[in-house]
């Protein structure tokens, strides 16, 4: 409803004063803040002389001369030019006051180093009597006050800037639209009704070009980045539930970054592949850098501490990390304190986990009857007596072994500070019980990040992190050893009893049952991690600063095991206990100079520095048996009388580096980056002690071109191109050296005599694996950045692959490690973010990432192929599992084509030792005989496509987030199904017998032995998974004083998976992250589960 027409009355009044008069409250706070910050603000006096200079450049010059940083929306400064101004020993305040006399802008100190620039409400006549002041408070996504926000009335020049506590007051009348904007947050508009107070919550900007991203040794504005970087901010991370590390937190969130949980045990292993795998023998895991500190265990930090993750993908972005960058670099930045009111946050949840899928096994009676039937078929007496058949024994091993388990996390963080000192401290407790009994994971962690500014030139900071983890673990290694409980559960018959009458675990035919193996042995693991690092930054002259960082990271893990005498193997030796200890200490010191300079339309940034890193990796362990009691477990190894082994080792790793980078921009349109790093490593042979890793990239911000100024489709258009060479130094320690190691022996039949033997042939030429990468990228923004997209094409070629080249055994050695062979990865990545709806009551945001990668081995150093083997599920010698050959990709299954079973009387001349009912395989080479030559490649284990799709909805106080994630075009070898189908699975009832000819399940025998890698068990594992769905409700009304915001939420993980794969989880990789050549085995995996949880987030 409109009361009166707008009617100008008063003449315009000059700038600043008018604002002050009209906004009394603002005046008060502004004055207060000016007073508070009087030191830093007034103290620094500068000389400045400008002629026809864009205002943005003037700000840049002030930034170079002082500690101040300006925040503004680029639009505000568009076409603003300062014609002439000259200052001598003027305060910044004075400079700004002067400059803004003729420019309708105003400024506001957000803190001692940040100045927000906003539109000035002025110069337009205002009909005072018709405008009630609208008051309100602006908060960020966490409900924390947001100062410095520019508030304007749309279509007018009226405006103001929010105060320190986020409050604002502005005159506006009903029907007018208020617009709230500040750098780093999405601009928000609201049409005024009759209300007099409006509380506004701003959402962080994700696609903003001015967003600053962390790059190696520095930061850059997103718009100036020429390389390929995926950013994941804290609000995009998968937090909650079973997410216990940074890798899980970013799964599905970044294009071209494939995260898979190879083992879903509590604290289980995650594998991260950025743009496919480059290496055959070394690791394909990326380098993690946490707050500038390269850490092998970087992904294990408390994910709640993470402010954002930058994933550096192309050579331009990664080359500054040289010999460690070939697998990509994950830069993790943790949360730091901000000046202003202290922010106290509690974030916690409690959840339940439930088994996804059971195993369909024969019941006890079926199992016994089947065993008897088989005995008859082979002419043996009954395996089970009629009394046993009547016993009703029916054990569901998986059900006994699993439970509904709980997971919980409690995170308390405090941050705040003043202009000089900022602190962020957090503490976290995470605990997850495995759905498999006797497994769990627990972590206590604490972090403190402290920043201190001393005057204008010098600042220091320290980052402290400490964590302790504890878990009970089991083995899921894919072997048939009985201590691999999941294998034991698969093959265990339901006819086996669990307990004896006295409650002890029943043995079956002299062996322990699976529950005994699960519950009786003690398997504990602890980890400690402490990272202490500090930095000092000194501004030497304008634009030139020196940053020195240094620190130590100490990690250790300890395993304690005990096998008691309640177990057969423990009974034989009166208990066997062991302890193993691994520690790594990394010391790092780095120093780099950073220089920024603008001249005319040129902007230059140069970084150059040095780094020295030294690791000590130590391990020790002991195994002892023959105890008088089980009571000690592994806590008193001295009480065991027979020492089986005691070991220790220490490895020294060193890395000395020099690096530099130049960023140059012309007219904010043409961007060039060049990077060079020289790494010397203790791992490289003397002939290649140092490696040089260069990269170069160019980008063209087409959107800045004149011809783009009159279009409205694109809000951003940038073309990027890069090329560079990076290395993988994780080639093992001392590999190039000829080493002599202990080989002890008894020479009297009783005592051990020390011996030393040559254990490795030298290779002075040994060096890093080298990856050359080309990247072509396009950054797009549409509809005023409502839709943003990033497209990248890349081509990587890795050469000098580390390989073990076979040597004639007459040398005494079977192989020697050399650099040979090469492999290529090509792919496409797409990231799209779309703000579908954005108004006060309803917001809907969609983001999609998608990546395609194709790998091809070019050369295996002259070897025609490499076969990997897997443990034979039937227990004999290992079987050939995958085959790698030039032209193909890593982890391709190698085996037979299954062709059903032989019917009675069918011609079996191609498989002469087989009988009716045995498995039949295709004679591929048609030579009339089925043998090892009839094996072929049966599919690949690495997905060609990975994708993630997230939808966030906000309706009033409700928030809903639906996150889908998946992979496509790959297969798994379902060895669990093989074992069930030929053993205790329900399908085995349908096996071939003379009375059941019409089946494709073979008769009972091991006819699949050594033929078991075949098409019947290679299954397409493509999947789409509802990884996480979260429904939250925000209680914004102040329930209690001092509480800013309460959010309650319910969440579910792995609610459903759409897949044709018949196993329990298509993400499984039994052989873990190092299985470069033998991925794709699904056997004895930790059972997959769903998680449901309720959470609470409170901001004080």
């Amino acid at each position, binding site marked *: 409803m409109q009361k009166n027409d707008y009617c100008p009355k008063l003449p315009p009044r000059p700038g600043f004063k008018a604002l002050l008069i009209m906004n009394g409250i603002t005046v008060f706070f502004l004055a207060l803040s000016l007073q508070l910050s009087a030191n830093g603000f007034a103290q620094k006096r500068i000389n400045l002389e400008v002629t026809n200079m864009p205002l943005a450049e003037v700000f840049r010059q002030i930034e170079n001369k002082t500690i101040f940083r300006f925040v503004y929306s680029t639009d505000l400064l568009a076409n603003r030019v300062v014609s002439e101004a000259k200052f001598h020993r003027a305060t910044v305040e004075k400079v700004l006051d002067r400059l803004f006399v003729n420019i309708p802008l105003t400024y506001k100190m957000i803190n001692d180093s940040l100045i927000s620039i906003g539109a000035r409400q002025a110069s337009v006549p205002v009909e005072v009597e018709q405008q009630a002041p609208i008051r309100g408070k602006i908060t960020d996504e966490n409900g924390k006050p947001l100062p410095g926000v520019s508030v304007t009335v749309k279509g007018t020049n009226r405006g103001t800037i929010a105060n320190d506590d986020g409050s604002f007051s502005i005159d506006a009348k009903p029907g007018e639209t208020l617009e709230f904007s500040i750098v780093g947050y999405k601009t928000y508009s609201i049409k005024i009704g009759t209300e007099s107070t409006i509380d506004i919550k701003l959402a962080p900007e994700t696609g903003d070009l001015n967003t600053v991203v962390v790059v190696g040794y520095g930061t850059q504005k997103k718009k100036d980045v020429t390389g390929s970087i995926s950013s994941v901010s804290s609000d995009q991370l998968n937090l909650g539930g079973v997410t216990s590390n940074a890798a899980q937190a970013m799964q599905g969130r970044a294009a071209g970054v494939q995260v898979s949980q190879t083992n879903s045990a509590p604290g289980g292993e995650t594998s991260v592949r950025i743009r496919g795998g480059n290496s055959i023998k070394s690791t394909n895991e990326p380098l993690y850098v946490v707050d500038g500190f390269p850490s092998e265990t970087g992904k294990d930090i408390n994910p709640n501490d993470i402010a954002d993750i930058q994933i550096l993908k192309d050579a331009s972005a990664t080359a500054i990390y040289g010999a460690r960058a070939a697998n990509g670099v994950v830069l993790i930045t943790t949360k730091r304190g901000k000046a202003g009111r202290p922010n106290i946050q509690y974030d916690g949840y409690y959840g339940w986990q439930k088994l996804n899928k059971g195993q369909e096994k024969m019941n006890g009676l079926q199992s016994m009857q089947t065993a008897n039937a088989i005995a008859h078929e082979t002419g043996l*007496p009954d395996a089970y007596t009629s009394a046993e058949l009547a016993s009703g024994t029916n054990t569901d091993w998986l059900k006994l072994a699993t439970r509904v388990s709980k997971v919980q996390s409690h995170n308390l963080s405090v941050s705040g500070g003043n202009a000089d000192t900022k602190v962020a401290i957090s503490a976290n407790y995470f605990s997850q019980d495995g759905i498999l009994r006797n497994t769990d994971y627990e972590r206590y962690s604490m972090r403190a990040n402290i920043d201190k500014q001393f005057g204008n030139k010098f600042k220091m900071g320290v980052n402290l992190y400490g964590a302790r983890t504890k878990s009970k673990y089991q083995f899921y290694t894919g072997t048939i050893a009985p201590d691999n409980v999941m294998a034991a559960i698969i093959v265990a018959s339901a006819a086996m009893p669990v307990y004896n009458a006295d409650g002890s675990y029943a043995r079956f*035919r*002299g062996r322990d049952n699976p529950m005994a193996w699960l519950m009786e042995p003690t398997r504990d693991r602890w980890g400690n991690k402490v990272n202490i690092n500090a930095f000092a930054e000194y501004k*030497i002259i304008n634009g030139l600063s020196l940053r020195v960082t240094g620190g130590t990271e100490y990690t250790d893990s300890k395993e304690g095991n005990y096998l008691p005498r309640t177990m057969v193997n423990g009974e*034989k*030796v009166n208990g066997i206990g062991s302890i193993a200890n691994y520690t790594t200490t990394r010391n790092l010191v780095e120093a780099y*100079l950073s220089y920024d300079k603008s001249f005319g339309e040129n902007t230059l940034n140069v970084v150059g520095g*040095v780094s*020295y890193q030294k690791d000590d990796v130590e391990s020790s362990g002991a195994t002892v048996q023959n105890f008088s009691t089980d009571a000690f477990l592994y806590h008193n190894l001295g009480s065991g009388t027979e*020492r089986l082994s005691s070991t*220790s*080792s220490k*490895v*020294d790793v*060193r890395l*000395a*580096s*020099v690096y530099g980078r130049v960023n140059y921009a012309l007219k904010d349109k043409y961007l060039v980056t060049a990077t060079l790093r020289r790494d*010397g*490593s*203790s791992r*490289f042979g003397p002939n290649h*002690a*140092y490696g040089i890793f260069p990269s170069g990239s160019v980008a063209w911000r087409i959107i800045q071109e004149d011809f783009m100024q009159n279009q409205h489709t694109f809000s951003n258009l940038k073309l990027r191109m890069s090329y560079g060479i990076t290395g993988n130094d994780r080639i093992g320690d*001392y590999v190039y*050296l*000829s*080493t*002599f*190691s202990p*080989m*002890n*022996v*008894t*020479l*009297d*039949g*009783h*005592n*051990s005599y*020390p*011996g*030393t*033997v*040559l*254990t490795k*042939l030298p*290779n002075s030429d040994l060096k890093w694996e080298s990856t050359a990468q080309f990247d072509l990228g396009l950054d797009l923004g549409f509809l005023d950045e409502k839709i943003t997209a990033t497209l990248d094409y890349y081509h990587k070629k890795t050469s000098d692959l580390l390989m073990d080249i*076979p*040597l*004639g*055994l*007459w*040398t*005494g*050695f*079977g192989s*020697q490690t050399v650099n040979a062979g090469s492999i290529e990865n090509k792919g496409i990545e797409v990231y799209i973010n779309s703000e579908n709806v954005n108004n006060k009551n309803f917001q809907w945001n969609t983001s999609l990432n998608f990546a395609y990668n194709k790998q091809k081995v070019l050369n295996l150093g002259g070897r025609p192929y490499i076969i990997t083997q897997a443990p034979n599920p039937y227990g*004999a*010698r290992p079987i050939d599992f995958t085959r790698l050959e030039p032209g193909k990709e890593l982890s391709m299954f190698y085996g037979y084509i299954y062709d059903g079973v032989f019917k009675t009387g069918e011609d079996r001349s191609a498989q002469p030792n087989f009988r009716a009912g045995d498995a039949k395989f295709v004679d591929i080479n048609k030579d009339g005989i089925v043998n090892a030559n009839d094996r072929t490649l049966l599919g690949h284990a690495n997905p060609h496509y990975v994708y993630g799709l997230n939808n966030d909805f906000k309706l009033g106080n409700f928030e809903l987030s639906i996150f889908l994630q998946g992979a496509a075009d790959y297969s798994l070898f379902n060895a669990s199904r093989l074992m069930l189908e030929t053993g205790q699975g329900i399908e085995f009832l349908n096996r071939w017998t003379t009375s059941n000819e019409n089946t494709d399940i073979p008769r009972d025998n091991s006819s699949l032995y050594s033929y078991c890698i075949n098409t019947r068990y290679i299954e397409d594992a493509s999947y789409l998974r509802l990884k996480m769905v979260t429904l939250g409700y925000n209680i914004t009304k102040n329930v209690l004083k001092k509480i800013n915001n309460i959010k309650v939420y319910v969440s579910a993980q792995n609610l459903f998976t759409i897949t044709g794969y018949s196993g329990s989880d298509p993400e499984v990789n039994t052989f873990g992250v190092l299985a470069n050549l033998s991925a794709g085995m699904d056997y004895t995996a930790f059972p997959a589960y769903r998680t449901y949880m309720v959470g609470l987030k409170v901001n004080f």
Partner: protein
Amino acid sequence: MNRISKIILLGVMIIGPLSCKKLIEPKVYSSLTDVNAFLTKSDAIAAVNATYARLKQPSGRGDSWMYYAGFQQLLTDMTTDAAIAMGGDHGKLADGTWGANNVYVSYGWQFPYKLVSDAINGIYYINKMETISEDEKKQFLGELRFLKSLGYMDLTDAFGPVILQTEDSVANNVANPHYEAALPVTPVDQINTMMISDLEYAAANLPVNYTNSAIYKTNDVGRASKGAALTLLCKLYMREHQWDKALKAANDVIALNEYSLFPSFAGLFAEDNKWCSENIFSVMADQIVDGIEIKNHMGPVNHPTITFRWGMFLVPWPFYNSYALTDDRRDMFYAEYTGTDGLLYKQPPPGQTTPPAGEAYLFGAPSKKFVDPNGPNNYLDGHVIPVLRYADVLLCKAEALNELNGPSAEAINLINQVKGRSHAPLLGDPSDFTKESLRDAILQERGWEFVYELKRRQDLIRMGKYAEKTNAYLISRGMPPSITMPRDKYFSYPQNQIDLNPNLSNEGRRNN
């Protein structure tokens, strides 16, 4: 000096030292390098000791049944009439159907070379040492040259001409690495010449025993001695049918007055009998500090006291049945026992293949030789493997005498010493025998005496009976008589080695 130059100077000061190679040279803590591996006498001893470890310890494999601790018997015994196994590559050896891809054939190549490699590395480095005395050097080199010969004895037994690697090859590779070179094979007679020289050196420089060694402070019965070198020399001459030299070497051993037959055959093989008067050279083991897995492979299945053994390597029933009932050695088998499953494990009666209820048939007799019924029941065992023992010397001397002069009382007396110890029926008068029939009797006696002691194939070939005896046995099992001489005098070179070195050729050998 202005600020910029200060900065540049600072930069140079920082970057300068970082370019220094010393910064990135690692300190090697837990292994030795060629800089510090051979400094003192103790280092030399360690290099010698480790070479003995190669006689049984795993070389890159997780199993503890390498070389003399188990699989070498697959080549030397399983391929004859005196051993049987079923399934897998060991079954193929027992069935006479092995080929160039048989894993144990490739082990038979790999592990003796590993022994040779460690021995010649030790010889190369110890030769250069200046911190040890001449006597010490002779002792160490004597031991290593014996071990090197033992490796070449096995290699040439199995493969005939092989690639020759010596201490000179080590020197060449240290100076100019060329490990991947495809080297030619060396004829057996040239290798024999080298072995004779090495063994004569060892015999000349090694002590008779280590009870009062000036160099070693302990009685290291596992070390090579003068007697060991002479015995191996005797075996080499025997192989080459140089009977007079073999006889001389055997007499030299006997003249040492160091050895005699141990009174009890069972006691000789007790797990706790690590060394006795009959042992000339044995591979030592201890169940805790240096255990092996021979008991796992040979021990009976489901046995009530020798629990959790696999019963893989057995002796064929006809061979077992050939022992005289009075022969103590007949009792060295688990021929019949009630298993943990309540079944009676036994030899199948003739013509019978399906056991009646309550019984299970063993397809061969499990030996007690390396499965001491009174030994500890650990997973790993501590049985000592006799490589050279005095009974062998006596029987070699008898054989050499017979080959030189025909049957004689002296020869028969030697054989009867061995028989008598085990209460086996003795041989009668020399006039009952021709040279051929006494040779057959010696062969039979050696079979009974040395079950699974790495001798059978060598004996059969030396006496020209390999095809005859083994084919007869294969036929008795209903298998094709697949042994053909001279093709099967040597095994095929392992296929993976031929792939790497075209100088190795299986022409005239099994090539499947």
